[in-house]
């Protein structure tokens, strides 16, 4: 079976490869090239790429040692498969010639003609833009692995990762960034609170709830148990890496080295800081001690929240958006855990889904130009809310079909035995920490 799939993939690649080589040749570059813009967008793209390391560390650190290799492998495959899938098809669906405001239809397999690129109207080579967009796609894909950690079959995850990178994400991307219908309405999502983070977050919500909770997460009476992660240091390292990478994510989305970059970097930083501080104080008051892993989530929540509006709000607005995101992190995690009873080991649904939505809507409140609090009325607010709802509906709908199909065809979840012994041994025949004495979970719960 697997051999056949391998062959098939190779054949397709070979076929399309040579058909597209033809396309890419024989034309002259005519877009206006700016060296400094290109340097900026590439460096920003590299930083966004590095966020993958951040996700891997956060997700591994916040889950158990016996599943660490598996989560690492899923993260690695999100980038690897996502990079190829997005190059081959996703990029074209997202930015290719628009069809009915719904989907792009050209530029597959890197076949961007010089003339069509010149029309696109930015000052960097299309490959630089493609790289920047590829790492964004990989970010959307990788969010889900955290929420579905410690129990998802590896093969099923691979299928999911492929589908989100190749179709679910690019279509949302087309609506908002690729000239689609939401773009036309004036929906503002500068760097992707909705396009990237909410898509990841809502897919995570659907996936985790179809999958069901980890063994031992809920008592028979529905009371949730805590399942602490295995390395707070790696988790925190991951958060620092993500914060660092976000300086590529947000300011990089300007796609040019202009005078707005400084403000975008500052709003990004202030919202992250405010998110972290807010959660620290809330957990201190609420749980008596400042909660470390939740505070780390708070920083991420602030970052996700400011992503939509980082170029539209001022620094004061950024602080407020961070504070708001902080509140949603704490109560969002509790809500998902206790009310929805969806087991989300790393808080991905809250951080990316909820804070993404909240951040997008906040643009309607805090935008210096058009925000309600700045005298802009409610029009923008309405458009923002509409976009949030539309994207949530699309993502949840397609993710639901996707995960249900995977569940029916190949199964979504590992066996009880495998889950107990750990996915590292079950799925990969290895241990992440062979030299260390691992305790049995019940020894510390």
């Amino acid at each position, binding site marked *: 079976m697997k051999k056949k799939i391998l062959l098939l993939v190779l054949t397709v690649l070979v076929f399309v490869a040579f058909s597209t080589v033809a396309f890419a040749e024989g034309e002259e570059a005519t877009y206006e090239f700016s060296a400094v813009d290109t340097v900026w967008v590439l460096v920003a793209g590299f930083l966004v790429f590095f966020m993958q390391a951040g996700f891997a560390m956060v997700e591994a650190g916040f889950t158990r040692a016996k599943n660490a290799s598996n989560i690492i492998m899923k993260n690695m495959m999100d980038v690897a498969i996502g990079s190829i899938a997005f190059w081959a098809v996703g990029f074209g669906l997202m930015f290719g010639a628009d069809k009915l405001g719904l989907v792009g239809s050209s530029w597959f397999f890197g076949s961007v003609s010089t003339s069509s690129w010149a029309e696109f109207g930015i000052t960097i080579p299309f490959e630089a833009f493609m790289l920047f967009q590829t790492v964004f796609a990989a970010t959307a894909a990788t969010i889900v692995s955290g929420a579905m950690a410690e129990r998802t079959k590896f093969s099923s995850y691979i299928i999911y990762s492929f589908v989100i990178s190749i179709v679910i994400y690019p279509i949302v991307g087309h609506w908002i960034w690729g000239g689609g219908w939401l773009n036309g309405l004036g929906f503002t999502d500068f760097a992707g609170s909705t396009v990237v983070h909410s898509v990841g977050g809502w897919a995570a919500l659907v996936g985790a709830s179809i999958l069901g909770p980890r063994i031992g997460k809920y008592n028979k009476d529905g009371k949730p148990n805590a399942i602490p992660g295995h390395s707070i240091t790696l988790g925190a390292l991951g958060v620092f890496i993500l914060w660092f990478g976000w300086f590529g994510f947000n300011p990089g989305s300007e796609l040019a080295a202009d005078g707005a970059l400084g403000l975008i970097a500052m709003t990004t930083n202030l919202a992250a800081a405010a998110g972290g501080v807010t959660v620290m104080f809330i957990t201190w008051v609420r749980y008596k001690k400042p909660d470390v892993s939740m505070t780390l989530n708070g920083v991420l929540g602030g970052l996700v929240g400011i992503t939509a509006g980082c170029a539209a709000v001022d620094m004061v607005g950024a602080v407020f958006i961070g504070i708001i995101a902080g509140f949603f992190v704490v109560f969002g995690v509790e809500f998902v855990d206790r009310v929805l009873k969806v087991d989300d080991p790393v808080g991905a649904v809250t951080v990316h889904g909820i804070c993404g939505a909240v951040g997008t809507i906040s643009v309607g409140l805090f935008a210096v130009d058009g925000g309600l609090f700045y005298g802009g009325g409610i029009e923008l607010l309405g458009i923002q809310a509409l976009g949030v709802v539309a994207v949530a509906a699309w993502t949840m709908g397609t993710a639901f079909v996707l995960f249900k199909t995977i569940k029916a065809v190949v199964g979504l979840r590992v066996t009880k035995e495998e889950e*107990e012994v750990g996915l590292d*041994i079950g799925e990969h*025949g*290895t241990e992440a920490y062979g030299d260390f004495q*691992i*305790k*049995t979970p*019940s*020894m510390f*719960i």
Partner: protein
Amino acid sequence: MKKIEIITRPEKLEEIKAIVEKLGQYSMTVSMVSGCGLQKGRKEVYRGVEVSINLLPKVKIEMVVGADKVDMIIDNVCKVAQTGEVGDGKIFVYNIEEVVRIRTGEKGTVAI
């Protein structure tokens, strides 16, 4: 006074803890060990090389109890720890000559 030493699957610890608490035994000492027996381990492939894992993780639970409680505890533990597959483990019983509670200096049965 006897020591009951249970060596079994790690995932059974919590159930064993629960059942002996029902029997009034609240004290125990737990440690992680590795073991082999009839259960022969697994074979895995790591970077193309076959690895045989022949010591598997087990949990060791030690309880010092009055001689009269030994059978009851053994029976109950067997009940919850049994899966019927190799690897369920063993219970060993030792004689204990003296028990001292450090906090009070009490000795003998009262110190258990």
